[in-house]
C-alpha cells in the first residue's frame, strides 16, 4: 500500500529532522558576542552601521554583503517570467482572445480605483525606505504587483502595456548590473559600495548605493511579478468560454 509506505517514510524523515534539531537549541545564542566577530552574523551586526551606514542589517546583507545572491534571485524571477511566456505561448492567430468572465461589481471597481494609487505609494514607500525600516525591494515590488493585480481583476478591459513592463524590467536589471560593473571599472570589486558617499545613519540618503540598488530591485520585481500574473491571467480561459456558449 503506497500510502502507508509514504507515511512510514515521512515518520522516518521526521525522526531524523527532530534528531538533527536537537543540536540546534531554540533561542540560544549561536553567533557569539558581536564584538568578537567569530561568525558571519556577529560581523554583520557589529560592522554594518560603521561600514555601510544602513540601519536595517537584513537590507545590508541582502543588498551589499550578499548582493550577488540578490542578483541571482532577481534573475530567477526574470527567468520565471520568460519561461512562463514560453510555456504558455500561443501562436499569433490565437493570441487575441478576450478574457471572458463575469464583469466585476461596481464596488470592486470603485474600490480598486481608490486603492490602486495608495497601494502603489505604499509599495514605493516600502522600497525607498528599505535601508531604514523593514521592507525593501522585494516587499515593495510585491506590494505594487498586488496593486496592478487588483486593477486586472476589477477591470476586464484593463490593458497592461507589455512593452512598458519589458522596459521597466530590463532597465532596472541593467541598472543593477551596471552599478555592479561600475565598481569593477573604478578599480574595486563587483557590486562595491564604497565609491558612493555613505551619508549619515538613519537619514533617507544613507547607505551609499544600497538604496539605489534596492529601488532598482523594487521596480524590477514589481514588473516581473506583474508580468507573471498577467501571463497567467491572459491564458485562454477554455472552460468559462464553453460555459457561456452553453
Amino acid at each position, binding site marked *: 500500500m503506497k500510502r502507508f509506505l509514504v507515511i512510514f517514510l515521512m515518520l522516518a524523515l521526521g525522526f531524523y529532522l527532530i534528531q538533527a534539531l536537537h543540536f540546534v537549541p531554540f533561542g540560544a545564542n549561536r553567533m557569539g558576542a558581536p564584538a568578537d566577530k567569530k561568525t558571519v552574523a556577529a560581523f554583520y551586526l557589529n560592522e554594518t552601521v560603521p561600514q555601510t551606514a544602513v540601519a*536595517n542589517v537584513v537590507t545590508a546583507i541582502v543588498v551589499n554583503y550578499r548582493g550577488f545572491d540578490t542578483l541571482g534571485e532577481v534573475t530567477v524571477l526574470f527567468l520565471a517570467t520568460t519561461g512562463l511566456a514560453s510555456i504558455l505561448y500561443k501562436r499569433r492567430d490565437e493570441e487575441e482572445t478576450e478574457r471572458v468572465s463575469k464583469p466585476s461589481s461596481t464596488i470592486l471597481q470603485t474600490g480598486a480605483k481608490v486603492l490602486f494609487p495608495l497601494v502603489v505609494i505604499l509599495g514605493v514607500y*516600502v522600497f525607498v525606505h528599505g535601508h531604514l525600516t*523593514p*521592507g525593501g525591494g*522585494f516587499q515593495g515590488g510585491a506590494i505594487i504587483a*498586488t496593486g496592478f*493585480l487588483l486593477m486586472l481583476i476589477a477591470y476586464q478591459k484593463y490593458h497592461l502595456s507589455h512593452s512598458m513592463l519589458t522596459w521597466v524590467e530590463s532597465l532596472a536589471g541593467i541598472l543593477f548590473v551596471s552599478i555592479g560593473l561600475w565598481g569593477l571599472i573604478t578599480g574595486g570589486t563587483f557590486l562595491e559600495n564604497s565609491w558612493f558617499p555613505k551619508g549619515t545613519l538613519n537619514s533617507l540618503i544613507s547607505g551609499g548605493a544600497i538604496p539605489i540598488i534596492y529601488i532598482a530591485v523594487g521596480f524590477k520585481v514589481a514588473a516581473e511579478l506583474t508580468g507573471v500574473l498577467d501571463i*497567467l491571467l491572459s491564458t485562454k480561459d477554455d*472552460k*468559462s468560454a464553453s460555459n457561456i456558449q452553453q
Partner: protein
Amino acid sequence: MFYAGIFSFLALLLIASAWYAIRQKDLLYGVIATGVVSLILSVMFLLLQAPDVALTEAAIGIALTTIAFVITIRNTERYENDKVESGFQNKTKEE
C-alpha cells in the same frame, strides 16, 4: 509565558489549516487555507523578530501565491475528484 501560549496556539492553527488545505476536496478552499497558512506564518515571523521576512511572506505568500493558485483553478477544474472516469466525461463534453 504569554508568548509561549500565543506560539502554541498559532502552531496548532498552522497545522490545522495545512491539514485542511491538504484534505479539502474543493481546491478553492484548499488554496485559501494555504493563504491562511501564509498569514499565520507571517504573524509568527513578526513575533520571531523578523519583520522583513514577515512583510515578504505577507506580500508574496498571502497575496500573490494565492492569486496565482486561484487563476490556475479558474483555468482548470475546481474539485479534486477521485473517480477515474470524470476526466473523460469532461473531455467528451468539451468536444
